[in-house]
């Protein structure tokens, strides 16, 4: 139940901050999701969903951090190995 995969918001309904809901698409499967905890999330955003609640919006600008880190560390280790 802690497992969660990112899904894309395809529609939003309800203005009441605690009852804001939307449809989220998980690779073709649509689910009704409570959006009360991500008031900033809009249609087109990806969110992490747990037991029917979106808990975080995936930050597009950080999406490639895992690849950039690998490149930086490769360079760092090369520097280290080159200067004993």
């Amino acid at each position, binding site marked *: *139940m*802690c*497992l*969660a*995969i*990112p899904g*894309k918001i395809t529609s939003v309904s309800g203005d009441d901050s*605690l*009852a804001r809901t939307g449809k989220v698409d*998980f*690779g073709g499967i649509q689910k009704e999701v*409570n959006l*009360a*905890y*991500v*008031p900033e999330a809009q249609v087109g955003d*990806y969110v*992490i969903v*747990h*037991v*029917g*609640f979106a*808990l*975080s919006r*995936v*930050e597009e600008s*950080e*999406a490639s*951090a*895992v*690849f950039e*880190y*690998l490149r930086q*560390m*490769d360079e760092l*280790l090369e520097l280290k*190995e080159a200067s004993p």
Partner: protein
Amino acid sequence: MKYLDEYRDGATAREYATQIARLTTRPWAIMEVCGGQTHAIVKFGIDELLPPSITLIHGPGCPVCVTPLEFINKAIEIASRPDTIFCSFGDMLRVPGSATDLLSVKAGGGDVRMVYSPLDAVKLAAQNPSKEVVFFAVGFETTAPATAMAAHQAAERGVKNFSMLVTHVLAPPAMAALLSSPECRVQGFLAAGHVCTVMGCAEYEPMAAKYRVPIVVTGFEPLDLLQGLFMCVRQLEEGRAEVENQYVRVVRPAGNEHARALIRRVFEVVPRKWRGLGEIPASGLRLRNQYEAWDAEKKFGLADHDTPENPACLSGLVLQGRLKPAECPAFGQACSPEHPLGAPMVSSEGACAAYYRYRSHAPAAAPAR
């Protein structure tokens, strides 16, 4: 799928493993806290990509596994009542209680239903005013926002035939309890990314400082786990003990403040007994007094019993990272997902189930047949 497939790229994973091997000069033992992470590690064989000097210890972050037997028995007691609809996440239905399990209660005519969200249970209560609808609220900080909202909505809408059996647990106190044990072998942690999605990273700072242990908030995909391991090994090699966030695309330093606010409003922090770990101070959540009308334990007057665990199940040692699942004599023999002796073999996040599903079924010390 976007934000999923790219983090499972095999070539990048092997590159990460190579870099970790380059970085590592001596043995290190690192615990991944969350059962979801354990599952990904075993499924994708991440432990087998690592240099042999790095040992992964599987942590207690499986809510189904750490829910103590007395709560399973309480759930069964409620589910067996007439005019009651008992709602639960699917994982809990097959966890053995002392005498039976929830699925058997259902087979015997009990109205036990699997729900996706606690709000489904609130809805069921509104649709069935002549029944008592009870939700089994288990889980870590990741499911607490959903449970808090269910209590809040039931209270706002005056849904009086709804209540919850709450056994919520908190991850950081369990990590601190493991660290304070003299038998602790853990030198660094991969903290559970989705717990931090809700709670943020601040509560790990005092722990990293007090126990001199690096804590890297880490995601769940193979590349997340490998980057988290790299960051953790790098800290260990450099003699640092800091809190770092690998899962930056999802985890904000302050967590989700809206969710935290509702959790604080609905729940209070209490001591909680964990299966395999015993009672840990300030490690559970309970409904506050103003929500007691929705507290199933109070509503049905359930008594506390100290219930002994099945002695053939060594899940306590597994949950403390002192025994690998396949080292248990019952593993794959007396205990399997079809006939589980204990919860870690039932849950999709349980370490025993992960090893059973993805690794050889033979126990380490099995006699040759």
